[in-house]
């Protein structure tokens, strides 16, 4: 999807219209918002929107993961998200049966008991047999797609981007006519991380498809921090690999890619996809909102692109 020049310039000028807690729009549950003073999160703008949470690099089984999980359960009361997407490294280290309990089922018990479904993608620390684990909803596939309301989600296996997967992705994208197209996978195409940085090789494979078929939002993990990337070729990129692991101070200072970065504590993210825009909020382990904003839906790819696509 192309960026409309006016939208892009407006977006850049506004720093992507970040909303503070005070600036948050009137919502359906303002009372609940004030009641939860330890958790800075706003209610959704529109209860008909597609609402979800995003976690990445989460499966450590340590205290930090549990604390983020507890905040997510609390957040549900104010921002009732319908599902959670996982950006890989879902289970670190050994993957014995008890590890799935300690590193997934217990930390997110509060959500699982409310029947909130999780949709996982694979990280480099994940055994691909995780795709058979029912609570990850991968349908036995390394890469898969699912639809929620007006949005189509594409879960990719960025550890092993072979020809079969690329072919599958192009087929799926070419027939997707949903208002929102959202991809999520482990390795970030753009990142200001000092340790890993942008996955340029992967980008050369995926970005042309994303641009051609109008991908709107891309979520990735791998870097153990949060970063909102300045829109690239009309696509919003988020790195959110800090839901349990933390690489403190790892975001390169003055990186031209960074719209907003946070690398001093663990976070989770919630988002809602409305008719015209996406609202997002990023909340730290201690309940502080560290980033939020409203991002307009970009126009569909131009007709010329459609023609070239069909050729």
């Amino acid at each position, binding site marked *: 999807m192309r960026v409309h020049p006016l939208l892009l310039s407006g977006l850049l000028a506004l720093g992507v219209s970040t909303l503070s807690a005070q600036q948050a729009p009137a919502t359906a549950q303002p009372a609940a918002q004030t009641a939860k003073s330890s958790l800075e999160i706003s209610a959704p703008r529109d209860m008909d929107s597609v609402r979800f949470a995003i976690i990445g690099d989460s499966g450590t089984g340590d205290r930090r993961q549990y604390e983020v999980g507890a905040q997510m359960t609390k957040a549900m009361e104010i921002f009732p998200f319908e599902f959670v997407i996982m950006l890989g490294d879902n289970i670190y*280290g050994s*993957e014995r*049966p008890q590890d*799935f309990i300690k590193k997934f089922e217990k930390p997110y018990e509060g959500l699982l008991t409310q029947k909130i479904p999780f949709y996982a993608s694979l990280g480099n620390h994940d*055994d691909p047999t995780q795709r*058979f684990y029912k609570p990850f909803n991968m349908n036995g596939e390394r890469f898969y797609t699912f639809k929620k309301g007006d949005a189509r989600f594409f879960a990719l296996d960025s550890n092993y981007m072979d020809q079969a997967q690329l072919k599958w992705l192009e087929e799926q994208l070419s027939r997707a006519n949903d208002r929102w197209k959202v991809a999520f996978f482990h390795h970030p195409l753009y990142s200001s991380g000092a340790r890993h940085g942008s996955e*340029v090789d*992967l980008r050369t494979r995926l970005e042309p498809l994303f641009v051609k078929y109008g991908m709107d939002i891309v979520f990735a993990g791998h870097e153990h921090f949060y970063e909102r990337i300045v829109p690239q070729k009309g696509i919003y990129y988020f790195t959110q690999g800090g839901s349990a692991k933390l690489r403190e101070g790892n975001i390169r200072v003055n990186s031209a890619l960074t719209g907003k970065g946070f690398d001093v504590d663990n976070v989770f993210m919630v988002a809602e996809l409305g008719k015209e825009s996406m609202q997002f909020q990023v909340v730290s382990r201690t309940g502080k909102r560290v980033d939020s904003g409203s991002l307009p839906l970009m126009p569909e790819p131009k007709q010329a692109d459609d023609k070239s696509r069909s050729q």
Partner: protein
Amino acid sequence: MVRTAVALLFSALCISLPAGRLAAAERAQAKPPVNPHAQALVEFKKRVDTYLELRRAVTQKYPEVKETGDPAKIHDREVALGKGIAMARISAKPGDVFGPVSGQLLTIVEKDWNARSPADQKAILAEIPKGFVLKINQPYPPDVALATVPPKLLAQLPMLPEELEYRLVDRRLLLRDRDANLIVDVLVGAEPTRAE
């Protein structure tokens, strides 16, 4: 004696046959040209197919796990499948599958590596696990990350069926059985790790 006779006969033919007919005779005698790389790939595919055949036989004893909420079932099947395959190819040794394409694979990996920027090389090296022993027919260490195979490199390597995957580890290119977590073959000396 025989060689002399053949040489004389050949000389006689050269003298007696017109040039066009001589060329035709040479063509008839020559073997069809063979691309050694293509031949090696065909042989590699045959070996992969042989592995899959063996694997299929073992898999029948351990039916595929459909989605389950019980991770023990997934884990137990992975371990059992790995052991079953290892038993069925107990005499497997390095090069049994990679054999015919080993040289080509090393060249591909090396060229890919040399074409990368220093920053890209650094990023890849940072991802590659190292410092542990890998043996054929042994499980890939469950605590160790699976290094990401750079997509550009992956696009150059011979395609594999879904059951198998390449992985770069230390100084080796591995052939790994995805669902059995089994090291099927190991190719030593692959870049990029030579740069360590």
